[in-house]
């Protein structure tokens, strides 16, 4: 070998790329092909609908929070959470799709994390049923706290605190695939929250006072967060980035992403608010039209919800009936789909988990076992991207 030859040195380096699983890659290519094809079809459909709408209303249209399409079945907000009094409506609304194709797996991307000190931090993404694993280096002791995967699931954000339990400020660190770590902010407390663009993280920086701060993870520059997102508990954006929602002590608020068009709905009537120290106002997800929120119990850290077990209709103040897989078990995570439906992650009677795909009209489209989740101390589901 001649070390002084760029050509050979490049080929030697490229030789590191020999152990690819080509069967897996082929499946991923097919998945990507289907995804691109769906997006192109959706773009064509949206363009067509827009053109029709423009013609129908004479060239202008008003944006409305209330979607005119099918809506999930609801029950009053006073209903005990997790035990809907009525099942999903069996009758599709007039505008529901006549024949929605049943997918062979949960559509979109499920993100799981496996973080055990001393072992590789492993992210498992399952996209349209196809799994892939990415490692982010070895987990340190302080890494057993909450990692936040970026929206594109290529990076992790974590606050490396010397004493997380006692809220000692630490460094905001971005972990790349492979394990490279970059400190992008200091004196940070709490769980980092990725913003929809995947380039900024919202954190609380401790100085003379605690300040909601937006950190650009590319440049490490920081700016004070806008009022629309500053100092909000359990803040989350809709998948399309157009709405955000956050929880108060006994109420939930949804606004447009710029903070306008605000709706606040009380959940104080829920029995949980009387029987437990706090109401389930931790928002895990908000629908793309801003009408529905998935709510769960309030974890100690007020940045992010860890679970959701009920869905609130912000317009009517009623709870949405959720599917159940058996007596005594219920949803533990809920996300919304662009088609108005939901992905409900729910426990099953055999101690495992399943995904229930719910149509926009509240009926069940399909149920799939969750074969990736490994229980509370192992690999766990942390995010879903439709």
């Amino acid at each position, binding site marked *: *070998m001649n*070390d*002084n*030859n*760029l*050509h050979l*040195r*490049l*080929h*030697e*380096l*490229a*030789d*590191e*790329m*020999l152990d*690819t699983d*080509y069967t897996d*890659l*082929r499946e*991923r*290519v*097919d998945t*990507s*092909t289907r*995804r*691109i*094809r769906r997006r192109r079809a959706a773009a064509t459909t949206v363009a067509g609908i827009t053109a029709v709408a423009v013609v129908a209303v004479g060239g202008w249209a008003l944006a409305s929070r209330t979607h005119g399409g099918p809506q999930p079945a609801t029950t009053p907000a006073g209903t005990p959470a997790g035990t809907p009094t009525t099942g999903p409506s069996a009758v599709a609304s007039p505008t529901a799709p006549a024949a929605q194709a049943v997918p062979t797996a949960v559509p979109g991307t499920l993100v799981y994390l496996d973080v055990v000190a001393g072992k590789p931090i492993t992210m498992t993404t399952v996209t349209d049923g196809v799994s892939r694993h*990415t490692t982010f280096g070895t987990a340190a002791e302080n890494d057993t706290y909450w990692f936040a995967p970026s929206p594109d699931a*290529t990076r992790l954000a974590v606050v490396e605190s010397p004493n997380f339990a006692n809220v000692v400020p630490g460094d905001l660190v*971005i972990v*790349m*695939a*492979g394990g*490279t770590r*970059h400190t992008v902010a200091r004196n940070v407390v709490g769980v980092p929250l990725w913003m929809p663009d*995947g*380039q900024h993280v919202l954190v609380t920086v401790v100085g003379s006072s605690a300040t909601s701060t937006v950190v650009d*993870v*590319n440049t490490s520059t920081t700016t004070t967060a806008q009022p629309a997102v500053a100092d909000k508990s359990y803040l989350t954006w809709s998948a399309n980035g157009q709405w955000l929602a956050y929880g108060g002590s006994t109420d939930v608020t949804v606004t447009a992403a710029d903070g306008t068009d605000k709706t606040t709905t009380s959940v104080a009537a829920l029995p949980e608010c009387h029987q437990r120290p706090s109401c389930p106002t931790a928002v895990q997800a908000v629908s793309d039209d801003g009408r529905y929120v998935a709510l769960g119990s309030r974890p100690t850290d007020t940045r992010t919800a860890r679970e959701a077990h009920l869905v609130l209709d912000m317009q009517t103040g009623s709870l949405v009936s959720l599917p159940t897989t058996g007596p005594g078990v219920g949803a533990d995570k809920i996300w919304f789909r662009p088609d108005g439906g939901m992905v409900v992650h729910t426990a099953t009677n055999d101690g495992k988990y399943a995904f229930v795909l719910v149509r926009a009209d509240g009926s069940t489209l399909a149920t799939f076992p969750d074969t990736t989740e490994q229980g509370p101390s192992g690999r766990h589901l942390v995010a879903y991207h439709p």
Partner: protein
Amino acid sequence: MPDDDFDTFFRTRSPALLRAAYLLTGDRHLAEDLVQEALARTHLAWSRLRAEGSPEAYTRRIMYNLQVSRWRRSKFAEVRTDRVPETRHHQDEAGDAVNRLAMRRALGSLPVRQRAAVILRYFEDRSEAETAEILGCRIGTVKSHLSRAIARLRELLPELSDSGVEGASR
């Protein structure tokens, strides 16, 4: 059958595409993602590309352009460093590994267009004209990219100084 043809294309060309993608991204996961996306787009355009007889050129063009646009969106993915491991000249496994690491870091320190030009020119042995076509720029721009890239690589990897990496134009 078109899909059979694409299967054959996938089987025969994926390894080479992955090797180039690995040099481009410096990370095997990102390399697989890049090739996956480029092949998916190729698959969608397969009938036309097969008729035109140039599917691989299309795939490579997509791959390099995707990497440039991804870099624009997320410059953070570029881990730049002025420090590269000291290269070793005796031939043992550890020495090879150190040399590869040094090469990877040096390559990663280049702006993405310079890196792409180096890979096309010195890894894939493309002419300057072909490199310009794939990158969608003029030959003069390719020459400029290569000149700066080689200067930078020599700075980081002095042993490349007499490697004959300059001058040869096709």
